[in-house]
């Protein structure tokens, strides 16, 4: 107790925990302002809504831990969704189509990995390129038309739940637990952190930076494929439109979660909470009936404030 009390007085305590503190603060404010906010129904809805962003943020977190960035993540999700839609339309059934979505995501991840790890192209530019490429491919293969998908499995995925936890957020939670396990309890995760912290030293100790980089972009692509499933389930169709919002939000969630963009410091819980925070923010603003025009302003201010806080983190 006392230890915590002491901690609280230090600014770095606030900085390390910007995301959970921000989340708690938001919850308190919204709970006071809106009676609906803390109802079970709304919490359930919020969690389901957060699932896609949580999964993307986890993928992004692996990439950012190595000091990279994946700008193609939401375009990859779109591409995966179209892959699912086409496979399903062709009669492949749910499971095979899901596989196609994930493979499509892995494909873009592979291209990113090859460009960045083997081709030594700057992450920013490589993924900016694949953003365009994935978008173009999604448009071309779908002929620019949304593909309506009606599948029992998808219906179960969207509407099923255990208590207040809908299946999407349960899937996201399972992924988060696995991600945490791999990041902090296996050699692979340690090597991801080492490459992000100091690539030269990692290489001198026999770690293959090339393989690690390949792996994180594959993870991010694969998770974008999984997110594509939830996306198709949620909107009931595979659409070739890009969801730019998801890209910026996935990065914001990771940074709000206390991960430095320079790499080397891994976090999984932080980005998950960051994603929840961003979702709660839009949810609360919607509940309060705040005009659409003020919402980007509010999101921007929260991001900037959280970033100002995180800078007091201990090195």
């Amino acid at each position, binding site marked *: 107790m006392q230890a915590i009390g002491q901690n609280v007085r230090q600014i770095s305590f606030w900085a390390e925990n910007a995301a959970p503190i921000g989340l708690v603060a938001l919850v308190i404010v919204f709970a006071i302002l809106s009676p609906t906010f803390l109802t079970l129904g709304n919490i359930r809805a919020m969690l389901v809504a957060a699932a896609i962003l949580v999964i993307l943020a986890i993928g992004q977190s692996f990439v950012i831990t190595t000091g990279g960035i994946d700008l193609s993540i939401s375009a990859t999700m779109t591409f995966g969704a179209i892959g699912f839609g086409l496979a399903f339309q062709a009669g492949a059934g749910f499971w095979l189509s899901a596989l196609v979505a994930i493979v499509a995501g892995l494909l873009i991840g592979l291209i990113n990995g090859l460009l960045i790890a083997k081709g030594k192209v700057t992450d920013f530019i490589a993924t900016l390129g694949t953003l365009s490429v994935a978008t173009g491919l999604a448009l071309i293969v779908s002929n620019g038309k949304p593909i309506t998908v009606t599948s029992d499995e998808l219906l179960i995925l969207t509407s099923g739940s255990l208590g207040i936890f809908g299946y999407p957020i349960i899937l996201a939670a399972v992924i988060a637990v696995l991600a945490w396990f791999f990041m902090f309890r296996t050699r692979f995760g340690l090597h991801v952190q080492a490459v992000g912290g*100091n690539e030269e030293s990692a290489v001198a100790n026999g770690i293959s930076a090339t393989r690690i980089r390949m792996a994180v972009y594959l993870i991010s692509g694969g998770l974008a494929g999984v997110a594509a499933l939830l996306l198709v389930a949620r909107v009931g169709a595979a659409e070739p439109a890009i969801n730019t919002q998801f890209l910026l939000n996935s990065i914001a969630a990771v940074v709000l979660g206390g991960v430095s963009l320079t790499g080397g410091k891994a976090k999984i819980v932080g980005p998950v909470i960051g994603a929840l925070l961003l979702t709660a923010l839009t949810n609360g603003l919607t509940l309060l009936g705040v005009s659409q025009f003020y919402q980007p302003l509010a999101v921007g201010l929260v991001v900037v404030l959280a970033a100002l806080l995180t800078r007091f983190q201990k090195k």
Partner: protein
Amino acid sequence: MTDKYNSVPDVSPHTGTTQARDFILRATDIKKSFGGVHALKGASMTMRRGEITALIGDNGAGKSTMVRCLSGIHRPDSGSIVLDGEDVTFESPNAARERGIETVHQTLALVEDLSVWQNFFLGREKTHGFGPFRTLDRKVMKATAGELLKNLAVNVPPVTSKVRRLSGGQRQAVAIARAAGWGSKIVIMDEPTAALGVQETARVEGVINTLRDSGVAVLLISHNFDQVMRLSDHVWVMRAGMAVAERRTEETSGDELVALITGAKAA
């Protein structure tokens, strides 16, 4: 005394008795270029069992490049490395380490954001369990790292603290303890005391002697002649990408070494 630059000193003239099998390591005619820079132009050198071999030379002579070739970071463009009588090529730093060559790099090769024990076992972590769910054996690794560090550091840092928080001397201690702790045949140290104070330097020199006494061959790169004269049994001199001379330490002097380095004396 060697007949020419880059002669392959199978039988070293000044001892007359050294046999090939006494060499634990023999690198012959190593070449390595980076783009247009010829860092090594056909350098040869040897290390003997249970001895401290010093490698000296001016800035940019190619010492660190040679070290990187021996420790598997660079792959030589040409030339051969014979370890313990066996021709070897190292695909990776791990390959070299598996063959018993440990290195303390000039840059220390530590990851600042990882803890001491994580750095200690970086690249060869101990795990338990099976398949993709093999987990790190944190307990064992922490204990081992703590144990090995105790022999070396003046103020032993806790093994769970991040390297970022350590002082320069403590970092050097971690890097050296890591290299010394694996019961290897050869330990290479690239300027291990360049930035160290008196106390720390003394400790490191102690470790080097201990290693030698336990039968490990040590390759020491240093700009400090006193240190070289004090510690080493044999000295190799590099100049402009070539090994230009070798001496038994007891048969040479600081002045001669300077002359060899600068090229004032031919070989």
